[in-house]
């Protein structure tokens, strides 16, 4: 019986993230538009885009290989799996222990790996730009991520998200310098990973400034749709990651009642909204930076992460 419910919850989680992801992006876009005194697209615009893309035929470059056509599915699968393993409204998901925080980061890493390959596959110069810059950014973002994981893992004595979340809910953690640093670092990493301002501009198609968009330049139709969807998923994933680590309130425990689950869901949606809002505010308030200032930005994140880890010892030893 318990297994059934667990299975159900797990499935629900997967569906929820899949369904909410475009909405979150749409919400961010709309709020940004409003802050810029624009009407902006309706909230459901992303869904429409996806549907439209699905309907369109695929225009495939002649030099594209079979890999080029497989990659969207790979990326989507990896991202979706990652997203569905992050506790959103309930900890202790059935399969959450099949991949801990490190594994989740690594899953996103493999998604990026294949995306970068896709950028190179057609053999155009812009794809090359995109991939090379993407891997450069990643080469700094991921270590920062790992350092954040260290901080949390050392604190919680575990790399399991559920365990961490439960620990965070529990009183006695209190405010810690290193947690603050970790939060800031995580946000910076999240911005970089999701190609948001100031690292990259998701809206632009100015060739020389774009990174993520350049890689997917050659994609069209359903392939593009999948990639877009996984981008949405990724954003959602990071927001819910931050939420479940630093704002784990309202998350239902394992074997909680349906009421608690409902609460959890509501709280989760609320967190998403908050996160989206903050992101929008942030993005509208600052400008994009030059590509070669990105390393400094991420280097700072890495340093923060390392600092957080080390401070942990000190504050522990106090």
């Amino acid at each position: 019986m318990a297994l059934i419910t667990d299975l159900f919850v797990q499935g629900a989680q997967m569906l929820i993230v899949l369904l909410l992801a475009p909405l979150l992006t749409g919400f961010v876009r709309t709020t940004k538009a409003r802050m810029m005194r624009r009407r902006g697209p309706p909230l459901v615009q992303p869904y429409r885009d996806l549907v439209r893309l699905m309907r369109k035929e695929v225009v495939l470059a002649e030099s594209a290989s079979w890999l080029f056509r497989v990659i969207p599915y790979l990326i989507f699968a990896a991202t979706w799996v990652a997203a569905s393993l992050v506790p959103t409204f309930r900890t202790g998901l059935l399969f959450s222990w099949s991949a801990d925080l490190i594994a989740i980061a690594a899953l996103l890493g493999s998604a990026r790996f294949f995306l970068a390959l896709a950028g190179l596959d057609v053999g155009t110069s812009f794809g090359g730009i995109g991939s090379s810059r993407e891997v450069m950014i990643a080469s700094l973002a991921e270590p920062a991520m790992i350092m954040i994981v260290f901080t949390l893992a050392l604190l919680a004595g575990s790399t399991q998200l559920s365990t961490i979340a439960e620990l965070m809910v529990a009183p006695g953690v209190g405010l810690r310098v290193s947690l603050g640093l970790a939060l800031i670092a995580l946000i910076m990493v999240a911005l970089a990973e999701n190609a948001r301002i100031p690292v990259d501009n998701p809206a632009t198609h100015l060739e020389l400034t774009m990174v993520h968009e350049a890689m997917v330049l050659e994609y069209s139709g359903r392939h593009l749709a999948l990639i877009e969807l996984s981008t949405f998923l990724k954003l959602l994933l990071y927001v819910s990651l931050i939420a479940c680590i630093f704002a784990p309130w309202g998350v239902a425990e394992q074997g909680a009642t349906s009421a608690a689950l409902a609460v959890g869901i509501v709280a989760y949606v609320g967190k998403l909204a908050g996160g989206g809002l903050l992101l929008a505010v942030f993005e509208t308030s600052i400008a994009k930076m030059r590509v070669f200032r990105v390393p400094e930005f991420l280097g700072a994140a890495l340093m923060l992460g390392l600092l957080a880890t080390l401070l942990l010892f000190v504050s522990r030893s106090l």
Partner: protein
Amino acid sequence: MTVVILVCAVCWLMLAGAAVAIGRSPAGSTIIYGGSLLLAVVSLVAGTIHLLGHAAPAAVTLPLGLPWIGAHFRLDALSAFFIVVVDLGAATASLFAIGYGRHEQAPLRVLPFYPAFLAGMNVVVLADDAFSFLVAWEFMSLSSWALVLAHHRVPDNVRAGYVYIVMASFGTLALLLAFGLLAGPDGGYAFADIRTSHPSAAVAALALCLALLGAGSKAGLVPLHVWLPLAHPAAPSHVSALMSGVMTKVAVYGFVRIVFDLLGEPAWWWSMVVLTLAGLTCVLGVLYALMQHDLKRLLAYHTVENIGIIFIGLGLGLAFKAHGMAWAAALALTAALLHVFNHSLFKSLLFFGAGAVLTATGERDMEHLGGLIHRMPQTAFTFLIGCAAISALPPLNGFVSEWLTFQAILVSPQLPSWGLKFLVPAVGALLALSATLAAACFVKAFGVTFLGRARTPSAMAAQETDRFSLAAMFLLAALCLAAGILPGLFIDALAAAVQALSGERVPVQSGVEWLSIVPIAQSRSSYNGLLVFLFMVISGVLAAFAIHRLASDRLRRAPAWDCGYPDANPATQYTASSFAQPIRRVFGSAVFRAREQVTMPPPGDTGPARLHVVLHDPVWEGLYLPLAAGISFTAERLNGLQFLTILQFLSLVFAALVILLLVLALWP
């Protein structure tokens, strides 16, 4: 079992002899490689049985070598594990070579040495006394040296061979000193005696440093790695695979054997040394690799990086062992040994791929390749698996061992010593950095070599490689996947070796539900490759299914859009060096003092703009060139003594006489 493997070694030597005779005949290479394959499989089976059967160590003593000691051979869990690694590599390499060897222009320079090389590596792992260990060790170096010189008409290869043999004998001498130290003045060279003689702290420390020098120079620890990226690519590809995938592991074996088995209890600071070196090796190795555009050399540098990862595991093992945290030591060692196994798999796979590309196009330089995925899809597929595995992407095997290493690192805060508390997370950061850089590097390697459009006619005309080679590559790819999704089984398999080294073992994995791995405790951390794999497959298939049901599956081929630029010629693609340029800007300028200057044609001139990149190898220019200069200087100075007159020589004799008489006169 020991006897079986020894017999195999002898048979290999006979094969080597036979190769001289039949090497020229067309069937020769097939016979030799087939025979090697057979023998490798036999000893592989033997090793596996011993390892899985948790059999007691089997010792054999032959009346060879030093007469009053004899040649001791012993197969315990550790050596059994390495036998498995070695002979798995040997078997696949031989299988690959059955096809690949046909393209060899100078078979007589490869065939005799190849089986000898295999024999050497097997015997090193079996040896149980210092003398036979070193004999086998150096024999291994010699035969591989001959293989490096197989294509000796290429000047670079001769140079590579030279650097290799000198570094190899440096390593051997270091090990020789270490053993001399441990054996004591009256020469108890048998490992059994060394184990019982508990060396003093100073002696043990010195021996550790010597072992690091000796085994490290063979394994390719920075700064002793210089020979590796020269020698490994120079050899024929199946030999490169063996050298990179297997021989470096034999070096690791040497280190483990000496430090964990013979030296007794480690001191806490040993691990600091090892960890620091290992971290450096990781990052420098991968950074070097990123700067390369020769496919095989890039792979060789990645070997350096992975050796660094392995040594991080070993260093952690030392740290935990020194503080009596046996269970943690077991975890760290499991991580290290598992990475040894994994790396031998995917590095061989990648070198096979490089070899296939080499035979198909005659090119090693990635700048002249491209688009091979169209011409040789199967090779491309296996190579892609290899790239994903070495980049530590789940659900493949590379990720598992690095994940375990991270788990071991996360235990480090429980270490009492503050130095380690702070060092280990830093090393962890380096490890993470090198992992992501490796991913970047293999995006470059695969993307530039196999994706995009062909850059040269030779790449255009490539043909898919023969079926033996493909069989070997697919076998390895399958193993990579298997080790990735069922890591528990492999962890249990090497538990015996870990037990022998650390006195503990990680919990039995095969019992865990859903076949996931739980190194310490369920609540702490767990990973399930199988589930992740299934998840991805299912969701991917689901998505595909949904799309092909609901969405249109129309597809039209058209020229690449490329932001509306006309279809430019392949030269406009991103090359390896341009791909690495951002990373070069970020890291290279600091490490390699990388300088780029662009020579622009004057306005109106349609000539191409040229980009020159100048890199300085810090280790080579900082360490080895001054050394060479010093020796050359001394030689030049002393050389004057060749040209003295008889009179001056006589006065030398006279002086010697007078000095000796003075010594006598002043003798107390």
